[in-house]
C-alpha cells in the first residue's frame, strides 16, 4: 500500500472514530430519532429527497411560497374588512373561499405541474438523465420521484392556505363535506395535471419539439384551470345538491377513471425513458387493458347506481359518450401500438411467456406491431361491444332510444371495422418506412391520419373525376369513404351491402394478417444464461454462495488477524 493510501485510510479511520465519539455524546433518544429518520430517508425515493432539498433552496419555490402566503394574508384582511358589518351576521365563507381558491389554483394547477415539466425536461436537456438512468433507479422510480416531489410542493402550498380556509369556514355558509370535496377535487386535479405535464416532458426532440410540447402543456393547464374553476365556484356558492352516497359514487367513479388513465400516461412516460433493448410495451398494454376495464366497469356501475326509474333516460348519454371516447382513444393508441418496433432482443425474448396457456393468452401483450394490431383490434371490438350492450340495457329499461338501437349498432360496427382497416394501413406504412429510416412510434399518429385521409379522399376524388366533377350521390363505391358512410349510417340511409362490404373487408384483412403472422412474429422464449440467472439470484439475496466482497477501503490488510 502506498503511503498516500495509508494516510488517506488513516484520515478515514479518524473520521470514523470522531463520528463514534460524537455519537456517544448525544443522548440516546436523539440518537434513536436520528437513526429512525435516516432509515426513513433510505426508504424514500432519492429523487424526492434531492428535489425537496433543491426546492427549499430554489428561488422559484421560495418566491411562489411567500407570494402565496402574503396574498392569502392580504385577502384575509382586505376581504374581511370589505364585508365588515355583514361578516358578523350573514354567512360570508363563500366569498372568502372563492378568493382563496383563486389564490391556490395558480400554484397548484399551474406552477407545480409546470415546474415538474421543467424538472424532467431539463434532466433530458442537460444530460443528467443519462447519469440517472444508469443508476439502480428504474424509469418508473424516476417518474414517481418527480411526481412525489411535485405532490409534496403542492401539499406545502395547501398547508399554507389551511389556516385561511379554516378561518373562512368559521364565517359560515360552507359545510365541511363541501370543503372536503373541494380540497379532494383540487388535489386530485393537481396530481393528474402533474402526470400530464410529465407525460409531455420527454417527448421533446430539438427546439421546435420543445416549444411545441411546452405550448401543449400550457394549453392543457390553462384549459383545465378554466374547466375546474366554474365547478369549484358553483360548489362553493351553492354547495353540493347530491346526497352523500351519490356524491361519493360520482367521486369514486371520476377518481377511478382519472387514475387508470394517468396510469397509462405514467407507463408510457416511463417507457420513453427505457432503453430500446428492453420490453417497453407489455407494461403499457397492461395499463391500457386496465384502463379499458375500469372505464367500462365504471360506466356500467354508474348507470346501475343512478338508475331510479324509467325517467332516467339521460343515462343513455353515458354509453354513447363511452363509445365516442373509445373511438378517439383507440384511433390514437391503436396507431401508436401498431407502429411499435418489431425488434425482439434476446433480453425481451427471455421474458416471453413460456407455457402453452401463457403463449395463447399473453402473446398479444408482447412487444411488436403484429401483436399490437391484434391487441388493439380485439380490445376495441370488445369495449365497443360493451358500450353498445350497456346502451341496449339503458334503452330497454327506460324505453328511450329503443328505436335508434339499430342505428347505434350499425355505427359501432362500422367504426370498429374502419379502425381495424386503419390499423392495418398504419402497420403497412410503418413497416414500409421502417425498412428505410429509423421510425419513432409517434409517426404512427401521422400514419393513421394519412390512412384515414386516403380512405376518404381517394374514392371521392376518383368518382368525382369519373363523373366529370359533377355532384354525385352516395353509392357502395364510396364504401371506404368512412366520413360519408358514417354520415349515411347516422341518417339511417345505408345499404346493407356497404356494411357487409366494409366489415367483410376488415375481417378478411385481419384474418389474413393473423395467418401471415405465423411463427415468424411469434418468437419463442429464449433461455436466460446461467451466469445471468445466478447474478440476479445473488442480487435478490437468494444465493448463499456469495463471492467475497471487494474491499474498496483496503482495510482487510489492517485487520490484525490477517
Amino acid at each position, binding site marked *: 500500500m502506498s503511503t498516500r493510501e495509508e494516510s488517506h485510510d488513516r484520515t478515514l479511520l479518524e473520521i470514523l472514530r470522531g463520528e463514534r465519539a460524537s455519537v456517544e455524546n448525544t443522548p440516546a433518544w436523539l440518537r434513536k430519532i436520528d437513526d429512525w429518520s435516516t432509515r426513513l430517508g*433510505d426508504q424514500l425515493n*432519492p429523487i424526492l429527497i434531492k428535489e425537496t*432539498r*433543491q426546492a427549499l433552496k430554489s428561488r422559484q419555490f421560495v418566491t411562489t411560497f411567500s407570494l402565496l402566503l402574503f396574498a392569502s394574508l392580504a385577502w384575509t384582511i382586505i376581504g374581511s374588512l370589505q364585508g365588515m358589518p355583514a361578516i358578523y351576521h350573514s354567512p360570508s365563507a363563500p366569498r372568502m373561499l372563492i378568493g382563496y381558491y383563486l389564490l391556490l389554483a395558480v400554484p397548484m394547477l399551474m406552477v407545480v405541474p409546470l415546474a415538474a415539466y421543467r424538472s424532467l425536461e431539463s434532466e433530458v436537456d442537460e*444530460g443528467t438523465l443519462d447519469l440517472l438512468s444508469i443508476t*439502480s433507479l428504474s424509469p418508473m422510480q424516476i417518474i414517481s420521484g418527480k411526481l412525489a416531489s411535485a405532490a409534496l410542493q403542492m401539499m406545502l402550498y395547501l398547508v399554507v392556505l389551511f389556516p385561511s380556509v379554516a378561518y373562512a369556514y368559521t364565517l359560515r355558509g360552507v359545510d365541511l363535506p363541501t370543503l372536503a370535496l373541494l380540497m379532494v377535487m383540487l388535489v386530485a386535479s393537481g396530481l393528474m395535471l402533474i402526470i400530464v405535464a410529465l407525460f409531455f416532458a420527454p417527448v421533446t426532440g430539438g427546439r421546435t419539439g420543445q416549444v411545441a410540447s411546452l405550448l401543449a402543456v400550457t394549453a392543457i393547464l390553462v384549459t383545465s384551470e378554466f374547466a375546474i374553476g366554474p365547478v369549484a365556484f358553483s360548489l362553493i356558492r351553492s354547495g353540493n345538491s347530491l346526497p352523500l352516497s351519490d356524491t361519493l359514487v360520482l367521486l369514486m367513479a371520476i377518481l377511478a377513471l382519472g387514475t387508470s388513465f394517468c396510469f397509462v400516461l405514467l407507463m408510457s412516460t416511463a417507457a420513453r425513458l427505457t432503453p430500446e*433493448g428492453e420490453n417497453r410495451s407489455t407494461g403499457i398494454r397492461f395499463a391500457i387493458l386496465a384502463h379499458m376495464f375500469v372505464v367500462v366497469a365504471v360506466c356500467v356501475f354508474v348507470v346501475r347506481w343512478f338508475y331510479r326509474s324509467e325517467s332516467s333516460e339521460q343515462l343513455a348519454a353515458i354509453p354513447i359518450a363511452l363509445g365516442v371516447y373509445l373511438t378517439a382513444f383507440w384511433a390514437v393508441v391503436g396507431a401508436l401500438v401498431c407502429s411499435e418496433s418489431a425488434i425482439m432482443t434476446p433480453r425481451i425474448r427471455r421474458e416471453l411467456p413460456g407455457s402453452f396457456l401463457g403463449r395463447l393468452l399473453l402473446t398479444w401483450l408482447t412487444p411488436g406491431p403484429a401483436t399490437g394490431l391484434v391487441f388493439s383490434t380485439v380490445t376495441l371490438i370488445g369495449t365497443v361491444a360493451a358500450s353498445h350492450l350497456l346502451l341496449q340495457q339503458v334503452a330497454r329499461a327506460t324505453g328511450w332510444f329503443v328505436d335508434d338501437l339499430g342505428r347505434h349498432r350499425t355505427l359501432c360496427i362500422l367504426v370498429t371495422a374502419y379502425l381495424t382497416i386503419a390499423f392495418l394501413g398504419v402497420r403497412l406504412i410503418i413497416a414500409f418506412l421502417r425498412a428505410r429510416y429509423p421510425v419513432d412510434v409517434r409517426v404512427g399518429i401521422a400514419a393513421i391520419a394519412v390512412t384515414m385521409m386516403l380512405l376518404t379522399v381517394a374514392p371521392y376524388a376518383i368518382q368525382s373525376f369519373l363523373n366529370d366533377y359533377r355532384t354525385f350521390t352516395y353509392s357502395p363505391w364510396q364504401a371506404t369513404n368512412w366520413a360519408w358512410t358514417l354520415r349515411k349510417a347516422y341518417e339511417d340511409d345505408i345499404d346493407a351491402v356497404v356494411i357487409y362490404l366494409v366489415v367483410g373487408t376488415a375481417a378478411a384483412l385481419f384474418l389474413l394478417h393473423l395467418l401471415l403472422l405465423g411463427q415468424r412474429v411469434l418468437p419463442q422464449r429464449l433461455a436466460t444464461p446461467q451466469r*445471468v440467472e445466478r447474478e440476479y439470484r445473488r442480487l435478490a439475496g437468494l444465493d448463499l454462495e456469495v463471492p467475497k*466482497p471487494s474491499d474498496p477501503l483496503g482495510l482487510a490488510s489492517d485487520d490484525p488477524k490477517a
Partner: protein
Amino acid sequence: MIRRVVPIPAVHSDHAVCIELRRLHRFFGATRAVNDVSFSVRRGHVFGYIGPNGAGKTTSMRILATLDLPSYGEAFVDGFSVINDPELVRHRLGYMPDSFGTYHDVNCWEYLDFFARAYGLIGRDRIRRLRWVLDFTGTRGMAEKPIRGLSKGMKQRLCLGRALIHDPAVLILDEPAAGLDPRARIELRRMVGELAARGKTILVSSHILTELAEMCDSVGIIEQGRLLATGSVEEIQRERKQHRELVFRVLERAGEMAEYLAAREHCQNLIVDGQLVRMEFIGEVTDQAVLVRELITAGYPIAEVTSHSKSLEDVFLQVTEGRVQ
C-alpha cells in the same frame, strides 16, 4: 476500539476479461460513428482509447455504459451483455461522461449523496462511502459548495467521484483530463493508477496519446469509427516506427550506395550529403537489420548508422490520417 469498517458489498467481478467489444458497429444514418471495433480489457488493466474529434470514442463508451445500443455487434462488461443485461452491467460500471449536466441549487455533498442513494446505498454505508469518495478525489473541502460555481477541474473531480460512488469494478472515463491543468493531470494519473491497483478495470479516452501513455497498460487508436491499432504503447510505437529516418555515414562511394539503396523497396527520399546518406525507411526492424547486413557485405565502408524514431505524437499522427467526418 475502532469498530471494524464493513465494506459496502460491491459487485465482485469474477471474469478475467472485464470489458469486451465484439465487432461493434453504431451508425447514425450515413455516419458510421463506430465501425467494426473489437477489443478487450483484462481485469485491473487500464486501456487508453485514443482518437481525434469525431472518432467514435464517446459513442462506443456510451454503448458500454448502456446508454445507447449498437447497430450491430455486441459489448460486454464483466461478461454481461450491455444489450441484454443492462442492469447487471450498471451495477458494476462507473461512467464519467465527457460533458455532464448538473442540477441547480445542489451542493457537492448533496449531489454525491443523491447518486449514492440512487445506487441503493443506505445508512452508514452511504455516509462512509461518500466520505471515502470525497477524500479520494480531494473534494472534501468543497462539499458545501454549490455545483454551479465549480471550476472545470473541480467538476471533473466531482464527476469522477460520482462515477466511483457505488464502488464499481469497471470504470469508463470519457476524456477525464480535458480542461485540466498540469498538476490536476498528474493527480488524475495518480487516481487512475490507484484505482487500477485496487483491481478496477478502466477504459479512459483522450485525444492525446502522450497524455495516456504513462497510465495505460494498453491503448487503442481509433479514427472514423475504425480501430487502427491496439496494444501497449511500446508495441504500437515499435510497429509504427517502421517509418523512420536512417542516416548512414559511408566513408566513400556515398553516391553509389545511394543508387544501390534507391533500387530497394524500403527506402525513400534519399539525400546524399557528403559522407552522409539520409533516407526514410519503411519496414520492420528486421528489414532494417537485413539492409544493414547487405550493405556491409556489399563492401560499403559504413562507419555509422543512426536511426531516428518518431515521437509518440508522430506515431499518433501517422496512425490516424486526420480525416474528419
